[in-house]
């Protein structure tokens, strides 16, 4: 890093937290600088590595603008905020991590519905009762799919 770039980076780093604060400096400018590799994430998050409800932005990899999500659901997904809106990446990860639990809950409903379908075959010889319980099982599976898909909606950012 050249001396001029380093001085500029220090200036950006002292201009506020990237994740939560918008009160100082231009996020677009700071983030664009980060994308061009002029600053490490350490510097971007200098002095303010805050927890936001369900997630925490990790200690970054030096020399890179990538960072891993380390919420307690632990998706380990790369956070890559889009240019000009640094906060979106973090929110995107938040929605993913919250969604992971929702998706797993939905996926648990799928075998539950299947067990009801199988139980209906074994327990009810009467066609009407059997059909009713099979439909109940399918309904639960449909609900599970809806929840799983709701939980897996991709964050509206650059993906990942």
């Amino acid at each position, binding site marked *: 890093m050249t001396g001029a770039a380093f001085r500029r980076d220090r200036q950006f780093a002292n201009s506020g937290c990237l994740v939560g604060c918008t009160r100082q400096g231009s996020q677009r400018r700071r983030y664009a600088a980060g994308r061009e590799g002029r600053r490490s994430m350490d510097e971007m998050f200098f002095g303010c590595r805050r927890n936001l409800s369900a997630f925490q932005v990790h200690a970054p990899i030096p020399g890179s603008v*990538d960072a891993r999500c380390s919420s307690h659901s632990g998706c380990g997904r790369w956070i890559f905020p889009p240019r000009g809106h640094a906060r979106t990446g973090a929110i995107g990860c938040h929605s993913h991590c919250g969604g992971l639990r929702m998706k797993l809950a939905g996926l648990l409903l*799928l075998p539950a519905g299947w067990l009801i379908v199988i139980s209906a075959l074994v327990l009810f010889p009467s066609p009407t009762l059997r059909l009713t319980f*099979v439909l109940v099982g399918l309904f639960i599976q449909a609900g599970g799919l809806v929840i799983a898909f709701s939980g897996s909606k991709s964050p509206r950012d*650059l993906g990942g």
Partner: protein
Amino acid sequence: MEADATILPFCAVLIVVVPLVPAGMSLINCGFGRVRGAANAILSSLAAMAVAGLLYCLVGYSWGGSTGGHSMVFHLGGKAWNWLAMEPLSLWGFLFSSGAPALVLALQTFTAGIAALIPVSTGADRWRLRSVCFSSALLSAWIYPLFAHWVWADGWLAQLGTNFGLGHGFVDPGGAGVVQVVGGLSALAIAWTLGPRHGKYPADGNSAALPAHNVVFVLFGCVLVLPGWIALNSTGAILFAGVSLARIPLVAVNTVLSGFASFLVSILATRIRFGKPDASLCANGWIGGLVASSAISCFVAPLVAILVGLVAGLLVTISVEVFEALLTVDDPGGAVSVHAVAGLWGLLAVGMVPQIANGPGAIGFGSQANSGQLLAQVVGVSTLIGLILPMTYGLNLLLNRLDRQRVEDRAERLGMDLHELGGGAYPEFVVHVDE
């Protein structure tokens, strides 16, 4: 159902044509990706097929087995539940002169590969080559053989007819469920595990179009899969539905008609929706029709096959957009819609449409036999969604924890060809990078 021993040589010839299906699908996978991942896409397809074929023979066949082999049976509710085959590992002591079981093994070496390469198009431009191999190994060594045993080797789904009086039990002679839906659900699990490509869902709320880099590849792949699909459906009909040689022309005609009808309705639907036909979606429609035909081709009259194809084409066209825009599943090749949605439709159609028995007599709508058959098909579909999907996703999630399946962001921007292979598919072209 036992295959007629006199037509097994004919069946062996047909199996030689089946590899045209993975050949065409590899081209489709390549064409749907971006230009900077073209070589990696086709290499991943071949790797997935190779790993799957190898693992199926070494491990998978032990759980999959074939009709009349050793299996694990438990009793529940006074019925025998054939759960798992218990054949020796690595084909130890396997008799290749055994007739039908040897042909089943040969066919399934390819079908396991087909199931494994379906998710490759979903993971285009972001799925590591080694992760493709690991995921294919899981699919072919455990998930695929498990379901294949239940359906094709007198497993509990095939015995729903004898145990519970549900028609002929769950039937799927061409592999619409065993191969296509298993592959399609695996594609969904991969899409969930990997997440969307960068730039697919920008912050402004819309999904960005990342068009196929070579539609010619995609459309030529569609043509290439057609003879393979006819062979696949015919072989399946002989080995798993016990149809006679006289029924094979019907299977071929139904397969083709279903694909054609689905293709044409996709042209119409995309023209109405977008003003002009969309070549990618039409290709998806073509494959969707063939997928749906795998379940029904040996049971129905040609007109019914056309009807099934028309519905499959509509379903594929609509569901591609629903998955992409509404459910934010980034599936570049539309594999979830084409293989899972159309396959599920084909499986349900077996119980919903009039079937021909041994001649022109139709069972018809609403008859006792057909409603029982529909229930058997519903149980099979419920098993696919309720057991196979969570299992596939869980195993891929575990794999992702052990070894991250998605490439780093800078590798995605650089392109999969340069990152994974060190060279591009088109070295004389100027490859554009996002940034």
